[in-house]
């Protein structure tokens, strides 16, 4: 782990503050039915109040019955968080009044949650190192419904479709020290939950919602924190944390106090605003839930469930690293795998070590059918694409084509019904071979320098970025197929 002191913010007054961030993430579990009722759990597009029964509605005499599937998913989540579900955990009632909470209490886990401990590891591309963030706990609880406030009306509406959806609330230790880290943690958590097949993970539908605790301090004692509630995108986490750090820094620099409070985030303005102060905090009057017996998990059962978990992100990144594929590219592939590119990881892991890195670059930078056509990519098509990649590897190894041209070439080849038997002839016909004829290129260089005397003079006077401009102009003149390395050398010769 990096030293938090590396993350100090330099302010105008040269006062240095270390931000500290902890994240609570509510993960909606993709069970078929709700946490304590048999009502359908897929609330996405259902008309209001159609996915409810007497339990969700909090009718008199209704008793919650725990959904086993939710417990199974929590066991999987525990594994993804590098820990193991507790053998004993229990439910408690958390009391408060709100129209979206039909029973007047939420069934949650207070002092004996299903998951204790664990950690999340992510790669920070800025510092180029791995960070490990510890998990305090994760507990099962039921989601609330939704209050809807129609514009310019003197009433509000309540939709209880979401009431009772199982949530796993994952609480991190306050070990994050920048907005970027907060975002990276959240992104990794998302991948973990998706790969463990715990959640649908659709952020638009609120399948994962984040509460972010932010404080700043000059030393190792934590400052007063503000909790920013209900962030539902990675970008908003980063923006909200950044705004909050700036806000708190300004307050402290002008000798004002930070008050402990809950804040909301205005996505349009990128600002946070006070919701309620913790000084008049709710007293939730936690009480053991007498209607739901404790969850007792035998080790054999936990073992059995853990065996069902598919391969997790770190399994892939560790293997991709051996193929010299960097972490950023790995994360992109992990993302493809979840969305339009199911199967891409297995494909890449099957590539020869000498070609994997280059082919991954093509997959990522040039729209590949591998990550577009899924899930219906045929083995035939996959084979064709694979052959294209391998043939091109041979050609690039010979230095016959530059990176600009290869993009165009790959795109063209994807459109062909059959791969041309004589690939070199095909490339030559398209005029995409790299021009490495020094005489021809020298003429072009001279022409460009003549037409761009100012840039050439700038370069002479030491302005290095001018060379890029000149190379670009030569490339243009060559129709894109000049060998850029040779062009650079030729320009430098003229100095």
């Amino acid at each position, binding site marked *: 782990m990096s030293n938090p002191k590396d993350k100090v913010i330099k302010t105008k007054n040269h006062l240095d503050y270390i931000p500290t961030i902890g994240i609570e993430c509510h993960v909606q579990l993709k069970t078929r039915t709700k946490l304590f009722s048999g009502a359908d759990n897929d609330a996405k597009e259902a008309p209001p109040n159609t996915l409810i029964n007497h339990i969700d509605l909090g009718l008199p005499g209704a008793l919650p019955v725990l959904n086993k599937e939710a417990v199974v998913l929590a066991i999987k989540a525990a594994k993804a968080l590098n820990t193991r579900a507790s053998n004993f955990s229990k439910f408690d*009632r958390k*009391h408060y*009044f709100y129209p979206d909470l039909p029973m007047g209490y939420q069934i949650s886990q207070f002092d004996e949650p299903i998951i204790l401990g664990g950690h999340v590891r992510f790669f920070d591309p800025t510092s180029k190192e791995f960070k490990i963030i510890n998990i305090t706990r994760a507990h099962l609880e039921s989601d609330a419904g939704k209050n809807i406030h129609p514009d310019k009306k003197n009433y509000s509406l309540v939709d209880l479709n979401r009431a009772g959806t199982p949530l796993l609330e994952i609480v991190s230790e306050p070990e994050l020290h920048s907005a970027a880290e907060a975002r990276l943690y959240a992104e990794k958590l998302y991948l973990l939950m998706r790969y463990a097949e715990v959640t649908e993970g659709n952020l638009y539908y609120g399948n994962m919602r984040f509460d972010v605790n932010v404080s700043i301090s000059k030393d190792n004692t934590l400052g007063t924190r503000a909790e920013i509630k209900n962030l539902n995108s990675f970008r908003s986490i980063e923006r909200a944390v950044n705004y909050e750090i700036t806000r708190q820094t300004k307050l402290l620099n002008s000798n004002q106090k930070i008050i402990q409070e809950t804040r909301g985030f205005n996505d349009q303005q990128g600002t946070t605003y006070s919701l309620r102060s913790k000084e008049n905090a709710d007293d939730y009057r936690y009480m053991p839930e007498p209607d739901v017996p404790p969850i007792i998990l035998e080790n054999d059962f936990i073992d059995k469930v853990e065996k069902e978990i598919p391969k997790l992100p770190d399994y892939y990144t560790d293997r991709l690293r051996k193929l010299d594929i960097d972490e950023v590219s790995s994360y992109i592939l992990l993302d493809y795998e979840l969305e339009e590119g199911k199967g891409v990881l297995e494909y890449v892991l099957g590539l020869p070590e000498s070609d994997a890195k280059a082919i991954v670059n093509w997959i990522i930078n040039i729209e590949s059918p591998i990550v577009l056509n899924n899930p219906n990519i045929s083995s035939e098509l996959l084979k064709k694409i694979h052959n294209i990649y391998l043939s091109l590897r041979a050609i690039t190894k010979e230095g016959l084509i530059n990176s600009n041209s290869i993009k165009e070439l790959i795109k063209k080849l994807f459109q062909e019904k059959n791969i041309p038997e004589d690939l070199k002839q095909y490339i030559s016909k398209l005029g995409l071979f790299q021009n490495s004829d020094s005489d021809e290129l020298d003429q072009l260089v001279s022409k460009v320098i003549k037409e761009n005397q100012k840039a050439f003079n700038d370069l002479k006077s030491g302005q290095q970025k001018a060379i890029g401009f000149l190379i670009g102009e030569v490339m243009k003149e060559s129709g894109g197929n000049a060998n850029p390395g040779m062009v650079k050398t030729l320009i430098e010769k003229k100095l």
Partner: protein
Amino acid sequence: MWPSLKDLAKDLRNGQVKSVDLVNKTFQLIEDNKEYKTIISVQKDSALKKAQAIDEALKSGHKLGRLAGIPFIAKDNFLTIEGYTTAASNVLKNFRAPYQATAINLLEEEGAICVAKSNMDAFAHGSSTENSDFFTTSNPFDQERVPGGSSGGSSASVALNIAPFSIGTDTGGSIRQPASFCGIVGYKPTYGLVSRSGVIAMASSTDTIGSLTKSVSDGILIMDIISGQDKLDSTTLDSQYKVDSKRITKVKKARIGIIKEYLDYGLDDSVRKGLDLTIQKLKDQGFLLEPVSISSLPLALAVYYVLCPAEVSSNLSRYDGLRYGYSDDQSKDLEDSYFKNRTNGFGKEAKRRIMIGTYVLSSGYYEAYYKKAQLVRTKIINDFKEVFSKYDFLIGPTVPTVAFKKNSKNSPLEMYLNDIMTVAANLAGLPAISLPVLMNDNLPVGIQLIANQKKDNELLSLALEVEEILKS
């Protein structure tokens, strides 16, 4: 007088009586006994329709359930699809349930017909029906006295022979105490033996469902039908522990402990007399009876009145008037509607318990009250366990007194003291039964038999024997 449930069922099967006539007779009896105010609402149309259907089915020789065509009365905290379910509270005055209690379903599957819903203390908070938001029921033996509670309407109805049986709930004594006051048999099973699904919750960790009958054998039949595991209630026990008529045996020998702590309490003369008589008769039959002390027992009432209000305050949170139930249409905004709906909807006792419960669960008081009470509860459970390693059953009075006069309890605390001998069985989840003695005297007296958890069949076997002995 109604014949026993078994005889009644036989008469119906043989075509000697018609269900329609029984149902009509019940409605007539409800009318005739109106002055006792035992009933909140009747289900006339649906009951008669069901009775007709059963009569026809019986005529055409169909094999029907064990209670086919027999009318019964349910305490008004059992949700029934027919009619209203109010828990005797203004909050639910016009509430119609869209689903039904498991216990009601099980009785209906055996052909029993719910004809009416009986009065109770609102939300089962009380020992006299005086806390009903609607009216107070009178004791069948003396109209100036209470029938006990909270299942007072059910008890009085059975004692008045309005219906052959009734079902009720017992959270701190709400079946046994009114059974004692009305001279009938009241059975409270082991916690979890009968599903609580569809029964309006009072204190979830001690709520039990049981029978109010004229005889032990009727009680056995009812408990046989309604007990058993239910997937709608996760706290129900495995069905191997259910009451099973076939497992009721003749008890000739048993070690019975006489609970010492209950004798030290100021008992009414007739209660002491009833208990002594029972003990003597049992000894005469060769049962071993000796005093036993359970030192934590005097703490049970205090523990109960911390834990019960805590759960009550939680269970009553749902009555906010936003989805169903009493709603004040003068509310200005959300907070005002919570305030008005709950202030004007709930009666005094419900509000008292909500406030006590909220207090004992509040941060800063939780440790001193709720947590401490839970510790003592565990101690009581362990003390009972120890006693049951030496004795098969325990015996004592059900209530220290006979039925008291209406409006005679001057404070809530005096009322709570009435539960002093019943709450311990609830806290420890034990099965207990109240049996009537001294029926020839002015006011009935109840004696209580208690067994270890899951020993319901054994307890009912003993009760059958004691009932027989008391008759001699």
